[in-house]
């Protein structure tokens, strides 16, 4: 009996607190005599109860509180909260505010994608436990990744006031805006960053054959914007690659959160038994609208619209990193042509309910708030991307394990870890997430 056959017969994978992901997740697989007995993606994150905590807080403190849901996508949480508060209060922001916020949002996509692909995913592709050994193995590549990450962070700081947890977002506007000279400098910096991004693309391309060839069709859900047609992160309605659409206000009918038998995590499904959100979902819904450089990056990897290999989410992120850089340059041009001016912010409390959606780097994100006539929050409901990917990760596991079991336990464990990482999960965004009981 060969070793491989032994591995196929009995597999016992128990990864506690998966590394190189944001937050805490476990992987459990049991196979006996070649038969799969248990395959589970579990989340033991400490729940933090944000929806309860915002109650009683004034509308102008909401974004400050909920940005703390996630350090990596704090800009997305702040933006969607600010938009939802404005919708509840009946506030329509100026075109300038909308453009500056979008510019801020692009910076987070770049920062998060570079962080994810460069620091968290690349080590797997190079067979290293972390980016640390790569510092001596491939110093130029690591320094290029760091440089691109720094540029993205400085870009965030210019618009958000600092790198993590924005301090410039206020209902109806921005507390501080950049100067035109700063925007011109940013444009120069971004142009100079394009070669670095292409270097990162080539570094990943050189080891891309280590991304498993695994496909599982699913429903891809993201924002979609028709007027004007845009590869959107910030405006538009909910759309799926299966052709379904829904207004943002009706996100609860899309997520359809539900509790599954023994595993007690709230999962989401729309038209299939699970759906996926994130860069690959956005790409699958918006590919023809991606920027020329984003398109070129996708082509290098053979990423095409309709791709259903979850590992290609990493590649879609690289394509988006190029896209947001180009889109930002265009946006800066528009802002400079119009000229920046200081705008007054005027908000009055009123009773109302408001919903908004944005694309966090790891997928579509919904916030809903309700306020009383004094402007104090009475209820909140938030739905974060990783929650929506939860069921999809589980379904991928169930398809992946039988297909890859013959490679042996170690390779299978590695494949499952990479599979989770490819979703770029943000587990401490645990607003809605329940723990899963261990099934003994």
């Amino acid at each position: 009996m060969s070793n491989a056959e032994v591995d196929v017969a009995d597999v016992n994978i128990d990864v506690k607190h998966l590394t190189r992901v944001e937050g805490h997740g476990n992987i459990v697989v049991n196979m006996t005599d070649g038969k799969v007995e248990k395959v589970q993606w579990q989340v033991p994150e400490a729940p933090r109860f944000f929806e309860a905590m915002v109650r009683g807080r004034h509308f102008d403190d909401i974004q400050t509180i909920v940005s703390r849901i996630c350090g990596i996508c704090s800009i997305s949480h702040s933006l969607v909260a600010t938009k939802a508060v404005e919708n509840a209060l009946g506030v329509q922001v100026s075109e300038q505010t909308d453009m500056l916020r979008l510019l801020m949002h692009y910076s987070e996509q770049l920062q998060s994608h570079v962080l994810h692909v460069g620091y968290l995913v690349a080590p797997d592709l190079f067979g290293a436990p972390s980016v640390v050994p790569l510092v001596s193995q491939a110093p130029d590549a690591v320094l290029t990744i760091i440089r691109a990450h720094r540029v993205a962070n400085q870009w965030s700081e210019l618009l958000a006031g600092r790198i993590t947890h924005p301090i410039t977002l206020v209902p109806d506007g921005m507390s501080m805006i950049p100067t035109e000279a700063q925007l011109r400098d940013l444009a120069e910096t971004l142009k100079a960053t394009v070669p670095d991004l292409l270097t990162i693309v080539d570094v990943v391309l050189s080891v891309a054959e280590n991304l498993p060839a695994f496909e599982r069709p699913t429903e891809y859900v993201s924002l979609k914007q028709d007027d004007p047609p845009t590869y959107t992160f910030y405006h538009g309605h909910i759309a799926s690659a299966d052709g379904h659409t829904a207004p943002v206000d009706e996100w609860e009918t899309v997520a359809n959160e539900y509790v599954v038998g023994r595993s007690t995590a709230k999962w989401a499904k729309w038209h299939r038994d699970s759906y996926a959100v994130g860069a690959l979902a956005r790409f699958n819904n918006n590919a023809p609208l991606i920027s020329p450089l984003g398109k070129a990056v996708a082509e290098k990897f053979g990423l095409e619209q309709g791709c259903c290999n979850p590992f290609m989410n990493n590649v879609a992120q690289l394509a988006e990193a190029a896209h947001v850089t180009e889109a930002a340059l265009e946006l800066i041009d528009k802002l400079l042509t119009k000229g920046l001016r200081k705008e007054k912010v005027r908000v009055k409390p009123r009773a109302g309910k408001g919903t908004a959606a944005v694309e966090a780097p790891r997928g579509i994100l919904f916030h809903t708030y309700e306020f009383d006539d004094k402007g104090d929050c009475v209820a909140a409901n938030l739905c974060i991307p990783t929650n929506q990917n939860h069921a999809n990760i589980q379904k991928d596991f169930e398809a992946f394990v039988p297909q890859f079991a013959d490679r042996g336990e170690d390779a299978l464990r590695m494949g499952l870890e990479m599979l989770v990482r490819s979703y770029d999960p943000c587990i401490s965004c645990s607003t809605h997430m329940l723990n899963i009981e261990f099934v003994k």
Partner: protein
Amino acid sequence: MSKPRVAIFDFACCEGCQLQIVNLEEEILDLIGAVDVVEWREAMAESSEDYDIAIIEGSITRSEDEDRIRSIRSRAKILIAIGACATIGGINKLKNNFDLDEVRECVYGEAHRMQHLDTAPTRAVDEVVKVDYKVHGCPMNPEEFTYVVRCLLMGRTPEIPDYPVCVECKMKENVCRWEYDEICLGPVTRAGCGAKCPSASFRCFGCRGYTDDPNITAAKDVMEKYDLSVDMLKSKLVLFGSKQEPTYE
């Protein structure tokens, strides 16, 4: 002398303070050169139970986490708490203002009685175990973090400001946020952030916690000058400032 072994652990938090370590960018290479990072789950697959310095992010909110932090404390010679969740309980302490059963029901509905959803009142790390050094802020100030680490490597005691944010804000020549009818917590909040928020025309919301001996009289004078009620102030103080006295003995 061998390099100190450092391990980084997270509890209930957004992991944004670990991100500030990543955000040191090129400087992180110097840090990795000066210490041996033996465990850092968010960034590395390696792990170890043998370390000299434990860096802790996040609040303690469950009994299993209490056991875990005690075990980390027993292994570490030096324990550093980073970020508001760890140093003062941070935003997580907002939960303590409600009945905890009701909080669970609000978020999880009918499922709220499940045992694994148990939640204890949020505590800062020093309410459970002894903390040697604190790097305040939400997120922590990365420069202050490297300053503290540098001090430890050189065998010096880091000096953390014990004066209010107003001092740093005045030095930046900002117009006082109170002049804009905003309730700014600068007068009672510990400095060391460089008054980043008021410098971005955003009120201080107290993420670094109070100074050791906040000047309440001066704060009252400010309240009177701007004709504002204590209730309005309280509503802002609660954001990061829900009950935070250390109970560790």
